[in-house]
């Protein structure tokens, strides 16, 4: 399973390295979202700094939908999905591989958007490790849930409109937890401020990773 995970993640990341869709389209989209949020909140610094954690995560959620759609669409043509099913790769490995590849791309995106939040909104990070933990756990959750829903909607012709509708309410806890951890981090909170949210993110990740490992194979039959 782990070998298949790496194979799958390597394949998706190689496609990304050659096509640069995430880098040239998804990341700029995230930055555009940050700029638009700034326009919406006005030129004053105060509301922007106050809203920075939430805006960061909302931008991440929207960008992750794009990343997931890209991750699904690389296998939508030339019978690639049937080929994968025939390849004999462990479905659990396929799921973990796709999740890993999406998570890696989202982490890079978080770095870009994090720098954007600091530079554009003037937010100053006090407790760095809270940011790091929330990003890591939140990203794994987004990638796992997104990959599952991506697989579910893979065969649908109208997945572009249906996927965000299905996925975004489900990942709402990631937004809540991530925002709260960022707020603690920006206001120089102690580790205790992040503890319940830390547990929540771990639970979210565990649930969707476990679900994906178990049902990714059967889901493929629906497409």
């Amino acid at each position, binding site marked *: 399973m782990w070998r298949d995970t790496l194979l799958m993640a390597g394949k998706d990341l190689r496609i990304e390295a050659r096509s640069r869709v995430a880098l040239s389209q998804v990341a700029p989209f995230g930055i555009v979202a940050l700029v638009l949020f700034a326009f919406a909140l006005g030129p004053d610094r105060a509301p922007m700094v106050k809203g920075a954690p939430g805006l960061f995560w909302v931008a991440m959620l929207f960008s992750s939908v794009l990343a997931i759609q890209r991750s699904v669409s690389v296998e939508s043509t030339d019978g690639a999905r049937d080929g994968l099913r025939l390849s004999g790769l462990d479905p659990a490995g396929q799921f973990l591989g796709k999740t890993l590849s999406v998570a890696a791309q989202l982490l890079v995106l978080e770095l870009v958007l994090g720098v954007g939040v600091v530079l554009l909104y003037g937010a100053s990070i006090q407790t760095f490790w809270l940011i790091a933990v929330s990003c890591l756990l939140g990203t794994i959750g987004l990638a796992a*849930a997104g990959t*599952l*829903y991506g697989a*579910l*909607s893979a065969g*649908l*012709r*109208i997945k572009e409109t*249906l996927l965000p*509708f*299905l996925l975004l*309410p*489900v990942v*709402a*806890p990631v937004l*809540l*937890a991530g925002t*709260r951890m960022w707020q603690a981090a920006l206001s120089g909170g102690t580790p205790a401020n992040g503890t*319940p*949210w830390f547990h*929540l993110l771990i*639970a*979210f990740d565990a*649930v*969707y990773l476990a*679900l994906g490992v178990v*049902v990714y194979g*059967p*889901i493929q*039959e*629906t497409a």
Partner: protein
Amino acid sequence: MTTKTIVQSPRVIWTTRIIGLLALVGTGLTVWLGLWVTPPDQTQGDLVRLVYIHPGVAWVALYLAFGLAAGCSLLYLWPRTRSLFWDRLAAASVEVGVVFNVCTLISGSIWGKPTWGVWWAWDARLTSTAVLLVLFLGYLALRRVPAEPEVRARRSAFAALFAVVDVPIVHFSVVWWKTLHQGATVLNANLSPTIHGSMAWTLLLGFVALTLAFVWMLLVRYRIGALEDYLGSGELDMALLERQSEGVVPPAPDLKAEALAPVDDAGAAPGPRAPAEVTR
């Protein structure tokens, strides 16, 4: 085919009618007791009358309907109990549950405006109820995507499963986020001090009536769903049958056939061909 017998069985139809009648009578009684018989509350005045409806509606939507849908989806995914029966029941349950969920939010809002001063408060229960509504609206949207019944059933069951495992996480996240909703009235330890005798009975009756209304709607919706599937599969058979009998000329001289014959295959002799077509 079991579905057909369920749908057509007179016993099922009559049971549905009786449940519907009981639900109607129960709801009527609840309205009468709630609006005219019971006294107004000391602190909340006439506003308290919403209490006879709101918790009952919420119970049906949040626990009964969505719980049933989750159970049915699991039963569908389990290979030994896989049957379109569970899929249709889950779909019917979600659809009725969504209606009750919207009613929960509306009745809660009507109560919230005079009490809290706002139509909507971002507290834990309201927020998780709203997220639940959106999750199951997604389920219904997924169901509307045209597909073979088995594919659709599988896909929907997975979607329901993914949504349901999210519910406790959403719940905890918004509980930690903020809480200002009032505590449980019925399920707390001191039932008698918080609610008056006739009020308690009306509340209970409301629960029963709304549950019966849910069961009635569920049965009717299931029946419609089954008939739709039946029609969907029957339409193809019907079309095939029509297509196959297109060339057939009835053996007895028929005014209609004679009128059609020259139009259908002009120049060809319809007479000799007819027997061959019939045997096919």
